[in-house]
């Protein structure tokens, strides 16, 4: 086995794979990407070619046009967009304040309170659908985008991440800002928040993908086109009993995943890094 060069470099010694393992790795990769490729195939070809793989099958955009015409996808897009932006912004505000409090303020019983917050890492809104539905209806939030998002705003994960980040920021910076006459809010906004940018990016990406993809709670709490996000719209549209043509379902599926999928393909590294950081759950 050959040793790699540069023993000082902290890169892992990449092992040379024997041919068999390369083959296995590639086979697995093809199996793994195949379902998605198949969905693309089905979406861009006439329904007759669903299970006929003909390289010269005519390409078409009809399926997309049909999907777009048969369900209000434009509205679903808007709803998902509003939901995701709203949730992420609200999470940033609420979790920043709480994370800052946990990191820097002498609150009595702080450790106990923090453990209480961490419980939410295990008890999520979708497990409590029954009671959360009742609470949402008491608050008049059923069938609103706020109702979908609000239970997720005080995210234990966000509070945890920001608290950890704020704790690593040297107090000297804070003191310097105070000498310049900054109050607590100014210190938070001018010192802590800018230095925590990578954390916001990571948390934001994880949160965006989570809420773009979330289904069960939005399904429970919405009941009209005006508030349904894409996932629920897609679920209603493609439920097998509706008898919608498969090529159309395929196109609709691609329509709903396209923005996130494209974002992922463009910013793979950032996405993977962000998911890694989420590794505290």
């Amino acid at each position, binding site marked *: *086995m050959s040793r790699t060069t540069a023993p000082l470099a902290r890169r892992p010694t990449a092992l040379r794979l024997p041919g068999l393992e390369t083959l296995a790795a590639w086979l697995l990769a093809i199996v793994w990407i195949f379902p998605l490729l198949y969905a693309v195939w089905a979406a861009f070809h006439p329904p007759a070619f669903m299970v006929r793989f003909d390289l010269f099958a005519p390409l078409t955009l009809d399926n997309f046009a049909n999907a777009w015409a048969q369900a209000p996808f434009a509205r679903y897009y808007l709803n998902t967009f509003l939901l995701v932006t709203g949730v992420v912004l609200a999470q940033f505000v609420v979790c920043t304040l709480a994370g800052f409090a946990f990191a820097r303020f002498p609150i009595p019983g702080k450790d106990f309170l923090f453990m209480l917050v961490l*419980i939410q890492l295990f008890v999520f809104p979708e*497990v409590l659908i029954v009671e959360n539905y009742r609470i949402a209806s008491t608050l008049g939030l059923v069938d609103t985008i706020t109702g979908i998002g609000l239970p997720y705003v005080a995210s234990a994960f966000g509070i945890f991440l920001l608290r950890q980040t704020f704790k690593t920021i040297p107090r000297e910076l804070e003191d310097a800002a105070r000498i310049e006459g900054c109050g607590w809010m100014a210190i938070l906004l001018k010192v802590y928040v800018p230095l925590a940018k990578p954390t916001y990016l990571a948390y934001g990406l994880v949160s965006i993908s989570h809420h773009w993809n979330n289904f069960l709670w939005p399904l429970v709490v919405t009941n009209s086109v005006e508030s349904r996000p894409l996932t629920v719209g897609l679920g209603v549209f493609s439920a097998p009993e509706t008898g919608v043509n498969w090529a159309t379902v395929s196109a609709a599926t691609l329509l709903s995943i396209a923005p996130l*999928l494209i974002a992922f393909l463009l910013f793979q590294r950032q996405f993977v890094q962000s998911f*890694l950081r989420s590794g505290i759950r």
Partner: protein
Amino acid sequence: MDRMNARVRMQLYGALLLLPAAVLLATFAYLPTIATLINSLFLPGFRGAPTEFVGLENYRLLVEDSTFWRVARNNLIYALGTIPTSIALALAMALFVNARLPGRGFVRMAYFTPTILPMIAAANIWMFFYAPQIGLFNKLLGALGLSGVNWLGDPSVALTSVIVMTVWKEAGFFMIFYLAALQGMPPELREAADLEGTSRWSFFWRVTFPLLMPTTLFVLINALINAVRVVDHLFILTKGGPNNATNLLLYYVYENAFSFFDRTYAATITVVILLVLAIVATVKFSILDRRTHYQ
């Protein structure tokens, strides 16, 4: 005196900063948890309002409910079917991608992509494979002259079909944690092992695998949580059928609450889920985090 005041002011300020999060957590996490526990002690009245206190009656019903046991058993099989397989696959994927491999970028992307799809979209795509007449799997079997399988309609196969789809969706997500751990391993270990002439197989089992144990535990916890929390795909693939063969606990909660309108029984099943999650949380906080202090 002044200093006292400053400290009290700090405490007040801190409490105010916590207030929005505290209110929201109370409303959507603590209150509903407590309400669930309380509701499980009642029988539903008219229009589902909890009226009659019955103590543990719902739990007695639960124990006698053969559907509940079926669903609980399904969920156990589902966990046992998805977790070890996806962990093993994730580890294999990470080892593949961590080694020098032609087209590594593509391979890594192929493994990871299912992770960012919504479960509902993944289920739609797999529906094309599983559907009885026109599904791809049966077409392929037909081309080979074999008779098709009713992948989602046959009670003895359906749960396995659901498990296979879940593994496909999850493995890539767990891979990235293994990959990060592998990349953090000191290369000296491998070099030393090479000098000693250790075989790759025994290097993996005696060095790599034990060193990856914290990652494995972490992934295990995540997989356990997902096994009780994610039921989105059932809405498309099987709706819990045929005859509850693929029903899982959370889906059964949904059915009871929003199809049968029996909210207190749904609360009782939710308590079971909360119990499972409490056990997972205890394991995580007591065993996994014993060394890592949240400081």
